[in-house]
């Protein structure tokens, strides 16, 4: 049997539009995940603040302990039972962002805790509050250390975003399946989609490497 890529070529504009949606979904959920991860990561720094710590830990356990697909379906198919009908795009972005935030929070916590304790002490010793010390002294150093593991997380997020095609979002995966449904060329179309995901993750890797090099050149790291 020979390969026939003509459905891919004739449907290229569909695939491209799908890729744009994939980029949109992942970018927005990335921002949400980072914001959430920062808050939860900081919330889990101090177990003595019991309520905050417990809430953050419960979130982490629940999200990491259940499949992303189940979480997405709860948002999209489950919430309407309570009359909460969210648009598909919002469900996808919320689901991915909440899921990613759990992993980002551990990256944030690890990076912050890897900054030498003396940095916080020195900052507090000149009279800075804990919050000021965190913003001006600890986080700028921690951010550089977050980049490699965040890169992993971003790439995982791009790939996981294919699941939102099941919420009727017209992302790259969804558009590909549409083409398959009329052409029956599964292998060719899935190969094309794989290449496009590969390009997206590759670009992300390049950008992150640039950012990291720039931060290092700025003298942020010894």
């Amino acid at each position, binding site marked *: 049997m020979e390969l026939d890529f003509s459905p891919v070529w004739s449907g290229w504009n569909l695939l491209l539009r799908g890729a744009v949606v994939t980029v949109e979904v992942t970018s927005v959920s990335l921002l949400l995940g980072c914001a959430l991860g920062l808050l939860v990561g900081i919330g889990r720094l101090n177990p003595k603040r019991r309520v905050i710590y417990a809430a953050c830990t419960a979130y982490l356990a629940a999200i990491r302990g259940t499949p992303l697909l189940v979480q997405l379906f709860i948002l999209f198919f489950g919430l309407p039972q309570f009359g909460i009908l969210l648009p598909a795009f919002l469900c996808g972005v919320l689901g991915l962002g909440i899921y990613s935030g759990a992993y980002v929070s551990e990256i944030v916590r690890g990076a912050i805790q890897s900054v030498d304790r003396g940095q916080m002490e*020195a900052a507090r*010793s000149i009279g800075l509050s804990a919050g000021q010390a965190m913003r001006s002294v600890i986080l700028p150093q921690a951010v550089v250390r977050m980049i490699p593991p965040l890169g992993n997380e971003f790439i995982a997020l791009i790939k996981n975003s294919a699941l939102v095609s099941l919420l009727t979002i017209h992302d790259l995966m969804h558009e590909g399946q549409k083409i398959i449904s009329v052409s029956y060329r599964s292998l060719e179309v899935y190969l094309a989609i794989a290449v496009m995901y590969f390009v997206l993750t590759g670009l992300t890797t390049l950008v992150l490497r640039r950012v990291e090099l720039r931060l290092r050149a700025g003298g942020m790291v010894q």
Partner: protein
Amino acid sequence: MKNAQADTPPIISIRGLRKAFGEHVVLDGIDFDVQPSQVVVVIGPSGSGKSTFLRCCNGLEQAEGGRIDICGHTLVQDGRMLADADCNALRQEVGMVFQSFNLFPHLSVLHNITLGPRKLRGLTREQADAEARALLRKVGLEQKADAMPASLSGGQKQRVAIARALAMKPRVMLFDEPTSALDPELVGEVLQVMKLLASEGMTMMVVTHEMEFAREVADVVIVMDGGGIIESGPPATIFTNPTQERTRGFLQAVLARA
């Protein structure tokens, strides 16, 4: 000798200070007063509680019992610490220099010094920069203003750390083994800056193993062992005629090494 002015109120007053890490009692009932402009050097074997004692004085360690009054604030009373916000205000008056320098590696030398004044003393960038440059001149590092900490030697880092603490215009300076992490040839430049501060009348508490510095600069030497002060007095007395056997043993061990 500045310790003669016993009638002026002390700038640091410590009564019955207690601190334990779990079961391990580190400070067991410390009483001590420091007069304004006095230089107090704390010596003693490692593990005697010297650093913990110093760190209690600006609230980096939380004391569990006793009372600390410093620069007009009651930092600790019956083992209860001042509220966090008031602790921040107090720390502006009590500078601290660490053994491992703890410069902020992501900020230039100048920015290390101006961070506190700009955030807490409300100085504009120009004012803070001018003050920082003056302090750098004082510690002999004016030409390093734009350098990153990683490019400095240990002695230079510690001098920047001193300038950073001074930028808050503290009334008391605490030094926690400021020369212990330095190569021997770099110790002198740091001690020189500390001597300059002492001669200007800064109140200083210094934990150190530099006996020569203690002999030359200290008004009072405190000898600690086992979480308590076993002996204190002018350096001449402590070094030539200590009353305690443990002091004698410690001094012999330290001076034999030199």
